[in-house]
């Protein structure tokens, strides 16, 4: 079984988002970076599939040179090798991103056979465009199910569980297939020190595709104005309890 997990490097934003002076990006000088949360579960699932069935897991990202950190992180967890589509750090729009991933998948598959499953996050934490996985599936002529909290390969099909109000709905896709997953699919493992050391020696193939012009063109980012709220402090410590009860009674909760 050959499995691909596509990931995106995103900043860990913490409590308050601050923009760069040109309003083109988040100010990240004081921030760490991570793999977008849904995709962490895609990486974990890819590793588990190969652990259970044998074969090879691959991680792919399109991002700046620094995004190698996230590829190494995934390999530290157990992914076998990485594909890095290196950018100059400028954002690529969803169509361009999907097209570059499709090219990379085709190149890899020409050399070492088709990916049985390609994992994406349902949407990236930062730009949240909700479309890369579906675009890639169409271009590759493969079925795609999205927003999954359950993925089980059974023979030549993959059983997919999507969380909906009041339960789960199921799809059965023939392999090869594309799936987009959500946090909660699994509990991702943590890297070990030997795993981190091994990751430094695992193969990483990088190339630098040219960025086409954006058809969904970001002009600028805006931090939304807060609701101008500042919490009314009802008190300090346990002494506040009677006042809190009063408020809860006023709003009809007690």
């Amino acid at each position, binding site marked *: 079984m050959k499995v691909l997990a596509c990931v995106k490097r995103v900043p860990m*934003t913490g409590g308050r988002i601050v923009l760069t002076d040109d309003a083109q990006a988040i100010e990240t000088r004081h921030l760490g970076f991570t793999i977008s949360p849904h995709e962490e579960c895609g990486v974990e699932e890819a590793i588990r599939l190969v652990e259970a069935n044998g074969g090879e897991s691959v991680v792919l990202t399109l991002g700046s040179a620094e995004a190698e950190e996230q590829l190494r992180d995934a390999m530290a967890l157990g992914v076998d090798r990485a594909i890095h589509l290196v950018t100059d750090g400028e954002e690529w729009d969803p169509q361009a991103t999907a097209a570059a991933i499709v090219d990379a998948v085709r190149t890899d598959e020409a050399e070492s056979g088709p990916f049985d499953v390609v994992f994406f996050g349902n949407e990236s934490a930062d730009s949240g465009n909700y479309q890369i996985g579906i675009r890639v599936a169409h271009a590759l002529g493969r079925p795609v199910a999205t927003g999954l909290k359950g993925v089980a390969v059974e023979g030549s099909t993959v059983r997919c569980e999507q969380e909906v109000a009041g339960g789960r709905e199921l799809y059965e896709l023939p392999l090869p297939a594309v799936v987009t997953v959500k946090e909660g699919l699994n509990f991702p493992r943590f890297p070990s020190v030997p795993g981190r050391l091994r990751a430094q020696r695992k193969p990483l193939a990088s190339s630098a595709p040219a960025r086409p012009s954006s058809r969904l063109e970001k002009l600028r*980012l805006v931090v939304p104005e807060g609701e101008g709220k500042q919490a009314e402090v009802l008190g300090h410590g346990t002494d506040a309890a009677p006042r809190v009860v009063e408020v809860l009674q006023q709003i009809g909760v007690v």
Partner: protein
Amino acid sequence: MSTLVYLEHAGGEIDEPSLQALTLARAVAGGNMVAAVVACNSLLQAPSDALAGHGVSVVHVAEGETFESYAPRAVAEAIVELARRVGATAVVGPGTERGNEVFAHVAALLDLPFAANCVTAATSEDGADVTRVRWGGSLLEVARVHAPTTLLTVQPHAVAIETTADAAPEVEAFAPQLSDAARALRVVDRVGASTGGISLADAKVVVSGGRGAGSADGFGMIEELAALLGAAVGCSRAVTMAGWRPHTDQVGQTGTKIAPDLYIACGISGATQHLAGCKGAKRILAINTDPEAPILASADYAVIGDMHEIVPALTAAIRAAKSA
């Protein structure tokens, strides 16, 4: 110039995100009437009366047995067929999980850009200018869509529904040509939720714990308070990452988005990840040791201090008030 709106419905009932999409679509259409498209397996389920007063001239009903259960690519192919037939310059839908899924299929089929979760939109020279949501609502992006047909979805609960004086629209049925791939991609089974109790998404009151709870055991007092208030228990992402609570309890951008009347956040600092999930709460009470914690700028009420002391005291006080 014509604008087409995809509506989600359940047995003829149109949900709010779809009505919000209609409102923004009329803005894109410059105030003109719009056409709507729904998919169902029987015309009997088609909404018409529910669309009176929403500026819809005609509702096109894609009929077929494929639509008996949710079939995202089939819905997308129906939208594509209709958009071509009516010469749509904009196609608008609700920015729900499934609305976004359908539109991504439409975008892939037409090889057009797609702007998800917009809060404003207006036509421009070669497409549209939009404002769309990033980071689950913690950041906005001003963007330009360059396309002969603009595809966009509308962020749920960000646009106020505006009604018009129009009567119920005409209903026109059509049977779209569907590819084999579209007919094959559909829900084949459904299983009920296994968890009992009050669902986070629908709870009127939610009591959550964050890193400040200190351990899995720290949630004992939160469960007790929640039980007393008939509330659901939630938590922050830090808590699920620590393995103290299951992911099904997680409130946030990558967890459950909640909209209770009251949200009690205990020992939660208020990272953007978390606030994206609880901003739908009518009122927020924060219990936190740090008077500068970011959550206080989103909360209505705060108690400053250690949740391990305050939560049991509050539980006792509520119990006393209830028995008085």
